[in-house]
């Protein structure tokens, strides 16, 4: 077990294994997002209350899921980096932050656009919306912090600490709809209860969520591979790799 973790933490080994995994996640992301989009946009029935504006859910919810999952991943990677000094965890954390910020923006933007026909307003300072806005600023903070140090190790440690502290915001986002009065509707998916939507509505949503997660994994593998080359460029195996023309 420890040998496996040690191997996983080796950039050279990760570089090789991620090359084989990457195409599968890209393919899964492409197929799932295309199928989910077609199903969600054209085939799912319109909502009896919201009409067709409810179709925004198929980008809003997957983006919001990713926005939060990526921040948790960054915090876990930060912990792994701080405790075991595994560099690959820090590389992955650095590479996933911009996608997390982009997904938080998508969730906020699509939510605001959705709010106009549904709530009659595009913004409210309520708990769910405000905590998501804080998440966006936390992402900006993590990204800015990495660029603010001349020493890479200091930057990595500062970004890891901010991710580990900022992750407190995630349960606040999750439970904000239960703890405070809010315009936002309660969670769409729950592990313990059946979905409140008919199958034709939630099946495409599940497909989109899986597609977005595959996209996140594929992109993180790809960018971490780039980051490995960047940071390990003086290593022998990288030299050999580049010399071969691959």
């Amino acid at each position: 077990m420890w040998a496996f973790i040690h191997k996983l933490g080796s950039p050279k080994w990760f570089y090789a294994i991620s090359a084989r995994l990457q195409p599968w996640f890209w393919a899964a992301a492409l197929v799932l997002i295309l199928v989910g989009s077609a199903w969600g946009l054209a085939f799912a029935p319109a909502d009896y209350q919201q009409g067709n504006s409810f179709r925004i859910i198929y980008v809003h919810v997957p983006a919001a899921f990713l926005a939060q999952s990526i921040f948790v991943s960054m915090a876990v990677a930060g912990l792994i980096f701080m405790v075991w000094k595994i560099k690959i965890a820090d590389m992955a954390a650095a590479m996933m932050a911009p996608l997390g910020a982009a997904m938080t923006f998508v969730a906020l933007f699509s939510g605001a656009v959705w709010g106009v026909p549904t709530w009659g307003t595009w913004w409210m300072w309520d708990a769910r919306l405000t905590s998501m806005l804080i998440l966006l600023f936390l992402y900006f903070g993590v990204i800015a912090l990495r660029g603010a140090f001349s020493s890479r190790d200091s930057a990595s440690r500062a970004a890891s600490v901010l991710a580990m502290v900022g992750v407190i915001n995630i349960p606040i986002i999750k439970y904000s709809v239960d703890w405070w009065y809010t315009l936002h509707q309660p969670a769409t998916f729950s592990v313990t209860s059946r979905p409140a939507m008919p199958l034709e509505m939630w099946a495409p949503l599940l497909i989109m969520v899986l597609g977005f997660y595959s996209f996140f994994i594929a992109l993180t593998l790809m960018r971490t591979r780039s980051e490995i080359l960047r940071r390990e460029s003086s290593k022998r195996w990288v030299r050999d790799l580049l010399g071969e023309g691959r």
Partner: protein
Amino acid sequence: MAFDSLSAFLAMGGHGVYVWASWGVTGLLLLGVVLHARAERRALLRGLRRRVRREQRQACPSADASPVSHQEGHVRES
């Protein structure tokens, strides 16, 4: 199919602006993120290969006459 015609699909029952704005921004960002990752990888590989070649030349200047480095120099000029 939830719509009778293409125009009904685009109109989204009067909510077309909201639906397409959300999907458009999402699609553009996902695409942009992929293009960025690709450009990042290409630029990085180009820069690193150039560095490796330069260092190899510095390590053995006499190798300049060899056909391999001559060919490489030609590629870089074009």
